[in-house]
C-alpha cells in the first residue's frame, strides 16, 4: 500500500546550529493512527511543522499523498489538517466565523451544513456565536480541531491534542479520533499521555534527539519489548535464591520473590515446580506486564 506520508533523509538545522531532525526516514500508511512519542525537545513538533510547511527543512524529501511538499505544496497541503500544540485562536472572532475562515483559506467553498455537522460532532453547536476568548481551554481545543477538520483533510496532525484537557473531554477526543479513523482519515498524534498512544495508536514511532529510534506496530512493540514479572509473596522470608533458580533473573525483596520472566530459560510451570520441590510456601502469585510507558522510559534512558 502506498504511504500517505513518505519522508526520506529529512534534516533540519536551525540558524543557531541546533540540529532538530537528523536523517529522518518515515512512512505513514493511509488510514492508520500513528503516534509519535518522544521526550520534550526530541523533535516531534519540528517534524510535524516540516510536513505542514511551517518550517523549512534543511534537506530531505517529504511526500504527502504522493505530492512533494515543496514542488507540489498546494496539492500536498490540501490533504493536511493541523491542530497545533499551542492554543492559538482569534480571540475576538466567533466560533462559526473562525471555522468558516479555515475552510475558506484552504480553498473550499462555503458549506454551512458541513460546518454545522462538525460543530455538532464536537459539541460546539450551541457555542457557534460565542466569541473565542470567552471559551474555556477545552472548548478552544475543540474549536481548533473543528478548524482543522473544516476542509476535510485526509491526514490530521494532532500535536498534544489532550494537553491540559479534563478527563471527560479527553475521552471524548479519543472517541472522535476513532470516528475519524473509521472515516479513513490518517491521524498522526503526538502526546505526553503514553496511555493515550497505547489505547489508540496502530503504530508507534519513538523519536529522541531528532532521530527516529524505532517505528513498529504497537502490538509488536508490546510483545517485543514488554517484560513480564512474576511476583510471588512468600509465607516465610528466604535468605537466598534457591540454587535451581540462580541462573534466572530472580530477586528477593523481603517476603517477595520477583522473577523477570524469560520463557526460554524457565517457563511458569517449571518455576512453580521448583518452589514446590524446595518446600517454599506461597501465599500469592501475581504477574505484571510492562506498559507502553515503561517501554518508553526504557527507550528514552538508553
Amino acid at each position, binding site marked *: 500500500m502506498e504511504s500517505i506520508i513518505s519522508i526520506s533523509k529529512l534534516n533540519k538545522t*536551525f540558524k543557531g546550529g541546533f540540529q532538530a531532525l537528523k536523517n529522518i526516514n518515515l512512512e505513514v500508511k493511509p488510514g492508520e493512527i500513528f503516534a509519535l512519542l518522544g521526550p520534550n525537545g526530541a523533535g516531534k513538533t519540528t517534524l510535524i511543522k516540516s510536513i505542514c510547511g*511551517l518550517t523549512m527543512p534543511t534537506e530531505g524529501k517529504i511526500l504527502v499523498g504522493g505530492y512533494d511538499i515543496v514542488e507540489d505544496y*498546494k496539492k500536498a*497541503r490540501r490533504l493536511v489538517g493541523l491542530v497545533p500544540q499551542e492554543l492559538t*485562536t*482569534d480571540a*475576538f472572532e466567533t466560533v462559526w466565523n473562525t471555522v468558516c475562515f479555515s475552510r475558506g*483559506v484552504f480553498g*473550499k467553498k462555503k458549506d454551512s451544513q458541513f460546518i454545522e455537522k462538525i460543530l455538532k460532532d464536537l459539541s460546539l453547536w450551541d457555542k457557534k456565536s460565542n466569541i473565542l476568548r470567552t471559551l474555556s481551554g477545552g472548548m478552544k481545543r475543540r474549536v481548533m480541531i473543528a*478548524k482543522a477538520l473544516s476542509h476535510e483533510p485526509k491526514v490530521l496532525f494532532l500535536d498534544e491534542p489532550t494537553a491540559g484537557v479534563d478527563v471527560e473531554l479527553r475521552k471524548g477526543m479519543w472517541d472522535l479520533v476513532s470516528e475519524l479513523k473509521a472515516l479513513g482519515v490518517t491521524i498522526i498524534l503526538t502526546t505526553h499521555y503514553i496511555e493515550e498512544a497505547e489505547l489508540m495508536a496502530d503504530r508507534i514511532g519513538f523519536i529522541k534527539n531528532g532521530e527516529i529510534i524505532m517505528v513498529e506496530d504497537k502490538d509488536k512493540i508490546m510483545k517485543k519489548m514488554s517484560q513480564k514479572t512474576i511476583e510471588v509473596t512468600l509465607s516465610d522470608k528466604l535468605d537466598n535464591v534457591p540454587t535451581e533458580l540462580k541462573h534466572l533473573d530472580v530477586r528477593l525483596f523481603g517476603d517477595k520473590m520477583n522473577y523477570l520472566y524469560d520463557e526460554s530459560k524457565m517457563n511458569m510451570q517449571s518455576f512453580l515446580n521448583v518452589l514446590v520441590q524446595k518446600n517454599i510456601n506461597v501465599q500469592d502469585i501475581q504477574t505484571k506486564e510492562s506498559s507502553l510507558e515503561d517501554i518508553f522510559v526504557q527507550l528514552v534512558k538508553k
Partner: protein
Amino acid sequence: MNMTAIGAIYKFEMARAWRTLAQTIAAPVISTCLYFVVFGSAIGSRIDEVDGISYGSFIVPGLIMLSVLTQSISNSAFGIYFPKFTGTIYEVLSAPLSFLEIVVGYVCAAASKSIILGLLILGTAHFFVDVTISHPFWMLFFLVLTALTFSLFGFLIGIWAESFEELQRIPLLIVTPLAFLGGSFYSISMLPPIWQKISMLNPVVYLISGFRWSFYNQADVKVSTSLIIIGCILAICIYLTYLVFKTGYKLKP
C-alpha cells in the same frame, strides 16, 4: 489564483475593520476634520491662496494622502502582525496558498480600508471647503496605487516587527515625519531653495504632488515623475515581500 482563499482572508480582515470601526474609520476621519477646522478655517483664513487655490482647499489632497498613507501602513502591519503575535498565522502558512495569494488577501483588505477612509475624508472635506477634482480617474488611480503600495510596505513592517513597539517604530519615527514634510500643508515651492532640494529626497512629496495635480492641475513635480517614484516604491516592496516568502524570513524558521 485561489480566489476562494484570497476572499476568505480579505473578508476576515474586513470584518476586523467593521468590528473596530471607531479605530479604523471614525478616529482618522475625526482627526482630519480637526485639521480642517484648525488649518483650513482658523489658520487657513489668514493665509493667502497657494498656487491660486484657497488654503483650505489646497490642503485637502495632502490630508487625504496623509491619512491613506499612515492608515495603509498601520492596517496592513497590524493585520499580519496580530496573527503572528497570537500564533494563528500557522493556519495561513500551512494552507495551500502561494505567497502572492497571502499578500493579495492581506494587502487588498488593508488598501480597501484606506481607500474607503480616503473617500470618506474627501466627502467630509466638502462640508468645510470647496473641492474640485480635475482628473477623477487619476485621482482614483493615485489613491489606489498609494494605498496598495503602502499597504505592502506595512505588510513588510508587520512581518519584520517582533513587538508592538517595533510595529510602531517605522510609522512613527520615519513615515509620519516624511508625510508631514511631504507638502501636505504647503507647496514645496514655498520653501527656501536648499529645502526644496532636500524635499525632493522625500518620496511622499511625489505622492502628494501627483495627487494634488489630479484635484487642481497644480503639481510641485512632474506627474510622470510622481508615477515613476510610486511605481519604484511598489516594485521594491513587491521584491522584498517575495524575498520574505522565499526565505521564510521571520515566518518560517
